[in-house]
Structures are given as C-alpha cells and as structure tokens.
C-alpha cells in the first residue's frame, strides 16, 4: 500500500496546539487530567444529582475524586481554571444548565468581556481571527 502523504508526527501535532492564543485544545493529556471533573459535570444530567448538588455543593463535590483546586474552581465557576485542569466545555455545560445560565453567557465569562459586551461582539460579526491564530507567529 502506498501513502500519498507522510504520516503525522504525534509530537509535532500536539506541540502546535499549544501555539493557539486563549485556547485549550482537549488533548488526551487534558482528557486524562480532567476525567473526574468531566464525569462529575456529566452526573448533573440527572435531576436528582442536580438537586443534591444545589442543596450542598461542597458535600456533593467531596464525593468525587477531584483535587481541592478543581473543587474551588467549580465552586467559583472559574471556567478557565477548569479548562486548565482538563475540563471540557461540553461537559462543563451541564454546570451551566444546572445554574440556569445560557450557554453563550457562560462562555462569555471565559473572556475579558462582560456578557453584554460579548453579545454585542457576536452581533458585530464575532471575534476576528486576525492576530488570534498563533502566539509565536503573531498573525
């Protein structure tokens, strides 16, 4: 069998992901690190779990194999820290809906904008890719 392109080098492939400004690509390393954060978030799909979590967030979190730092980030709804700890937005969104927060509003908390500012940016055509593609390249 012939291949029309060289095989991708896994180390180069992964290294490039760290060159994107303001972005945490959900790599296997992050998926491993954040496994229980994401499984905790997933548990909030069940209404009885949502009720128990809302009644005593700290007690509910203590049932999970999650670091103290991650527990604090969950309690503070500090989503950027949770991304750093391996959380993924599709899982974390279960926490958005537990809080009754619209998805886009929750997303805006990860930026340096207020929700009205973020919403206006989207109406105006979104964030430009200009200067936002590469940290090293600055383009």
């Amino acid at each position, binding site marked *: 069998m012939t291949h029309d*392109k060289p095989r991708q080098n896994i180390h180069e492939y992964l290294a490039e992901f760290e060159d994107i*400004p303001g*972005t945490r690509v959900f790599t296997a390393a992050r*998926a491993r690190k954040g496994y229980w954060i994401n499984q905790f978030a*997933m548990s909030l*799909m069940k209404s009885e779990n949502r009720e128990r979590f809302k009644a005593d967030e700290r007690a509910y979190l203590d049932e999970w194999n999650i670091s103290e730092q991650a527990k604090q980030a969950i309690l503070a709804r500090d989503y950027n820290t949770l991304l750093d700890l391996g959380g993924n937005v599709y899982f974390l969104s279960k926490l958005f809906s537990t809080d009754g927060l619209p998805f886009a509003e929750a997303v805006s908390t990860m*930026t340096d904008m207020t929700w009205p500012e973020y919403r206006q940016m989207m109406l105006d055509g*979104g*964030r430009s*890719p200009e200067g936002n593609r590469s940290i090293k390249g600055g383009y």
Partner: protein
Amino acid sequence: MARITAGVGSSHVPLLGVAVDQGKWQDDYFGPIFKGYEWTREWERREKPDVVILVYNDHASAFDANIIPTFAIGCGERYKPADEGWGPRPVPDVEGHADLAWHIAQSLILEDFDMTIINEMDVDHGLTVPLSMMFGQPEKWPCKVVPLAVNVVTYPVPSGNRCWALGEAIARAVESFPEDLNVQIWGTGGMSHQLQGPRAGLLNREWDNRFLDMLEADNDEVRHIPHIEYLRETGSEGIEMVMWLIMRGALGKKVKRLNRHYHIPCSNTAIGHIVLEPAD
C-alpha cells in the same frame, strides 16, 4: 438498489432548536437564518428521502468521558431526544433503519473501517437540530435516520482525509444494499466557532466561505486541511466541519451545488449550509 441522491452540510447549533421549539424562528434574530433554509426545506419536501445517514457528534449526552468511539453507527430501531439539561426537545422520536445501518456497518468493517456499533442511545441537538431545520415541526419525521456519530471533541479526532474516505466507503455500502431506497447523507456541525477560553467568540467568514467553495469544487483538496488549520482559523469547535467531509466524500468527485447559505451569528456560531448533488 439503494442510492445516495444528495448531500447536505449544515450547522447544528442548539439555539436553533430552541428557536423552533419556542416559535421564535420568524423574529429579527432568527428570521434571516430560517429564511436561508426555506429553499432547502421545500426541496426536501419534494425529494422525500427514505433514509438520511446523519453524521453528527454527541455533545456529552449519550457518551460521557468514559468511552470515546471515533466513528460509531446507530443500528437500532429508534432513538429518543436526549435531555441536555433542560429536558428533552419536544420533537418526535427518531426512527432508525436497522437493516440499512447493519448493512453499512458490516460493509465498512470489511473495508477496514473499524466501526463502533450502537444499539441504544439518545440523540442530542447535533442530530435533532438539522432534522428541524430541514423538515420543520412534523408529527413524525418524514424519513428514517442512520445516525453516525464522530468524535470531534477529544484529540486526535479523525483526519479530514479519513472522513472523506469513510464517506466513499459509505457510498459503496449504500449502493450494495438490495432495497430500492432514496438515501441522503448529511454532514453537520460548525461552521467557525469557539466556545471556550479567552479566544471564545472567534468567527471566520472568509475561511468558512472558502471551505464551502472547496466542497463545491471538482477535486478533493478539502480532505487535506490539517486539524491545526481548523483550530487556528475557525476556533476550537470549528473542527466539527470535518464531519461535512464524510458527506462530501460520499458524493463522488464531481458535484452540483443546489443551494448554499451563510449567516453570522447564531449565538456563538457562524451558520452555514450547503446542498450538493452527485454529478459524476
């Protein structure tokens, strides 16, 4: 013989489902988006596909962080709309086509695509929103659906090249199914959007339109776009567009474009859709 008669690429933004379910689709915000789908809804009414192979991704609804199938095919009889945190969407259950799905699954495995087979699952907005966009609000969906779920969340996700090749293999599988069926294939997700981190809200009208141009082209260059380009240019969630390549790969080398629409924004996302017909 069964045959693939058309392909559709479309965004599957959850807010569009909310707009349909809450009757907001004619307001100032959603009006232009739904107007863009009007032609396609009419066309689907005329085309009456028997089955849609619906390529989408699950957004932590049916699959949790435990099991991550790269390509999974639904071989069940029916699927219920998933509860994504606010209760399931008030849309009909999705009827599968188990015979065709098992035939495709078996054929793909024989062609070296090691598919995961799913018998039971709930389907989330990734699958039900495109149905609403194409068919409106019927009592019962007008066609059967073969769900094909792709991992586009945990990296590495499949390459564009592999997605295209899977589409080609799906087309061969459909052609070898003995029953006379009008089959469409839909690739969903995208277009540019980023839902996480300080760069959230990134949209790229220019790149998205170049991608649509490439889908219409009489060549397969689009399959070679690397992941890093999607990530840099279209935001971390723009990678969903690799799923459109499964659709495009299934249509053969030449296609005819029947409709195309693009609109910014819908929530965090650029909305686009394209309707293609094989023209070989």
